[in-house]
């Protein structure tokens, strides 16, 4: 049957051994020796030119980490990680602030080219300092302007460059690497860093607190609507390195920011560790929208290699009427273990979580969210779509809890799973904890193939089977795709659309 064949071909295109971003680049790197010790932490801190309080903070976290045990409750299996066999710091050697494209390390340029970033953006990414004229030109070009995204490119352990800094600064927005923020805006970093995910939070967050090397810092002051989308592009390149980035986003009263995150890594036989921490803080009436398209190398068809993606992401709706929204499209990583969460502390605050997790090959996903209702009249919404194929295991794990004082807390959770083939597994583990009589929680979950009735309904309107299936499956994930900013929606659709259509053949 040609339809079936087409379906198979489509699935194959996105299968794990078709990973497009698996190339590696020979770039001269500056690396710390393997292993983890106080010396290494001092080395990282010195490399970054950090103040003493930062070093103390890291060392405090490291000492705490030594007392912690690796958690084992998630539904993922992997050999024990040797934390002494990892480089905790790796940065490309390059001259600071190249003036033109020709001065930027050509290998670095090739990376961006291969990652499919358009030439103009490439120029931006490579950190070329623009002349006055070219900036003027850009200002006149409205079409171009509306589609602009400021990018922070993180290559292994360091942020290579951050674009559009000047224009953002005019609006009062600070967008830079976290290392720069520690140097330039220590008062802000000291006030907010670790206030959502404390150094003692969990095994990997504590490790991250000790050794984080870079990441993004965003500060949107009172009443400012960030004039463009902000974005970070993470790339792991070097062998045997771990990437430990730290992102801190603060939206002051009435501010708004939309932030995108993308990631890729080369194809390697060894597993690499990525343990990031993301902290979001929204004050009164502020809104933060955080979108992720996660496409780390998932390992090969036999399950060899791939990234261990153990991430702690948490948003704190600290102010009244604040809002934090997480959207994630998870297609990569050998193991994904992350739960972007919202602490709904402010009265009338709201949290959202939209997720599509596609697993194939031998991937293992244990992902979901936590919505902790503390303030009055808080609301949260969780939409999660899991798609498991091949030999993969796809778990949704989520917690919704209402504190005693969280009167009128509202939650709606919907998690659906699609299974492709009989060797994979889909699991749903929601935790609901209500300690308040006025709380109203609803949870629904389904797992199924496409129903014959739905298919029949569409087909009897003259739509061929193949298209009918495509329509229904796209409808399956539409809720989440709609939440992504335009730039990412296209990429996300490309990443998952094909696999979904294949799933029902």
């Amino acid at each position, binding site marked *: 049957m040609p339809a079936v064949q087409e379906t198979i071909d489509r699935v194959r295109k996105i299968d794990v051994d078709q990973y497009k971003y698996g190339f590696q680049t020979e770039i001269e790197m500056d690396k710390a020796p393997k292993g983890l010790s106080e010396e290494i932490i001092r080395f990282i801190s010195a490399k970054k030119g950090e103040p003493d309080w930062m070093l103390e903070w890291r060392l405090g976290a490291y000492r705490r980490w030594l007392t912690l045990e690796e958690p084992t*409750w998630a539904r993922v299996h992997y050999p024990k990680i040797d934390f002494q066999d990892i480089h905790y710091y790796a940065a490309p050697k390059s001259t600071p602030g190249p003036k033109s494209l020709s001065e930027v390390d050509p290998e670095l340029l090739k990376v961006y080219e291969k990652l499919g970033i358009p030439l103009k953006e490439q120029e931006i990414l490579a950190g070329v300092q623009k002349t006055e004229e070219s900036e003027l030109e850009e200002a006149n070009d409205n079409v171009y302007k509306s589609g602009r995204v400021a990018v922070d490119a993180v290559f292994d352990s360091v942020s290579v460059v951050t674009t559009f800094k000047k224009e953002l600064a005019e609006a009062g927005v600070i967008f830079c690497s976290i290392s720069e923020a520690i140097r330039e805006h220590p008062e802000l970093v000291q006030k907010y860093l670790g206030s959502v995910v404390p150094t003692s939070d969990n095994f990997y967050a504590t490790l991250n607190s000790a050794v984080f090397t870079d990441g993004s810092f965003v500060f949107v002051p009172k009443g400012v609507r960030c004039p463009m989308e902000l974005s970070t592009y993470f790339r792991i390149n070097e062998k045997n390195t771990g990437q430990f980035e730290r992102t801190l986003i603060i939206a002051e009263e009435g501010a708004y920011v939309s932030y995108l995150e993308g990631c890729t890594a080369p194809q390697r036989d060894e597993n690499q560790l990525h343990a990031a921490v993301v902290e979001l803080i929204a004050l009164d009436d502020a809104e933060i929208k955080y979108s992720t398209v996660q496409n780390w190398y998932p390992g090969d068809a036999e399950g060899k290699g791939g990234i261990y993606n153990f991430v702690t992401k948490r948003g704190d709706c600290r102010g009244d009427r604040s809002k934090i929204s997480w959207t994630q499209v998870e297609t990569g990583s050998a193991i994904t273990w992350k739960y972007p969460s919202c602490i709904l502390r402010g009265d009338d605050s709201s949290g959202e979580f939209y997720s599509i997790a596609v697993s194939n090959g031998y991937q293992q996903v244990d992902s979901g969210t936590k919505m902790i209702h503390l303030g009055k009249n808080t609301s949260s919404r969780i939409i999660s779509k899991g798609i498991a194929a091949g030999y993969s295991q796809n778990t949704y794990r989520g917690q919704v809890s209402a504190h*005693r004082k969280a009167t009128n807390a509202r939650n709606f959770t919907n998690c659906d*799973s699609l*299974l*492709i*083939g*009989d*060797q*994979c*597994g*889909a*699991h*749903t*583990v*929601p*935790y*609901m*904890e*209500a*300690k*308040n*009589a*006025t*709380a*109203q*929680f*609803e*949870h*629904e*979950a*389904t*797992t*199924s*193939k496409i*129903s014959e009735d739905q298919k029949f309904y569409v087909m009897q309107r003259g739509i061929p089977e193949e298209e009918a299936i495509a329509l229904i499956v796209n409808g399956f994930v539409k809720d989440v795709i709609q939440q992504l900013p335009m730039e990412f929606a296209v990429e996300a659709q490309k990443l998952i659309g094909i696999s979904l259509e294949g799933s029902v053949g």
Partner: protein
Amino acid sequence: MNMHAQPQRTLAETALIDAFGERLSLLPGDGAVMVKRDDAIEAIKHGLPTRRVESWHYTDLRRLLTSVPAFETDGIAKALDPVLDSSAVLPVLNGVSNSKLPEIDGVTVQRLSEKLTDGSVAPGLDRYGADDAIGALNTAFVADGYFVDIADGTQLEKPIELQNLQSGGQAHVRLLTRVGAGAKAIIVERQAGEGSDALISSVSQLVLDEGAEVTWLIVQEQPDTATHLAQFKAHIGKDAKLTLFIMNAGGKLVRQEVVVRTTGEGADFKLRGINLLAGDTHTDTTMVLDHAVPHTTSTEVMRNVVTGKARGVFQGRINVHQYAQKTNAKMACNTLLLSDDGEFSTKPELEIFADDVVCGHGATVTEIDHDHLFYLMARGINEKTARGLLVKAFVAEVIEELDDEALVEALEARLDGWFLTHG
């Protein structure tokens, strides 16, 4: 999911281990049974489960089990009138079965103490997992109960009521039932008592052969001083149907586990449960359902009412095995949280390894719908009465689904009784 080794034993753990040493010579069992008992007490020596053990996350037994009463030698429990008129009653009073066994056509009844002594029930004493603390406690101490065998093709006209009644102290009881091919029965498991502190572990094991049909009712009305740790385990064979109805309306610390496995194609399982929680009870209903073969179905509906300082838990896990294609499983858990000091936690889990299945679960926690309340009050019904009506309707819905009229009436009467004292 392993029980972690605990550095220091709690008072309750020490009391259990000491009690085992003292009771050992009195416990019935041949060599095989005694080996199982030793294994079980070893598990307890590793510590009772804490919230770090996933299946005990909301019921930290190590922390909640603060004291273990001694074994009473002169209990005063007396058999109760059965829930359903005309039932044949098999009472276990203070952990001891009745030596006078009733004669029922097609049914063989034996005292469990005899089956333990001859070792014929030893294989069934295994725990179902490393986290099976109730199984461990019961296997270590079980002294009596009943073994009921309903012969193939028997259509029981009168229900059987198994009563486990306790007047303080400890009791560890097992109720084993086999329902033969094509047989049909209604069985009531009554868990109640009176008086001071009690620790009860009760394990019911049920096997349904091909085409058997059973309605099993668990009516738990322990006094608010009792710790009640219960387990219901069933295997449902080919084309067999099991309807399990649980009513929890008492006890201080209650954990009712339901462990069910479909073992033959066409097997059907229905769970209907109501938890009526008042005072400062901690009541946990935990279900693990394995769809182990293709073409089996299940539906579960739980309705919970939480008042006072009560804490309620429902955990329901549906496992669909890799070759269990065409499984159809649905689970719903609805809770009315009526007081600010009450708590309810739910964890409805799906673990699915087969692709051609339809599985779903839904869970809600709410207060009484204001529109419904308004609707009734607009008709001149005062608020208290209106609330009472709505709460009762919320739970009665589950009862009314049972297709046996006498059963529905009997359960509604118990429901009314509860509302009279707690409403």
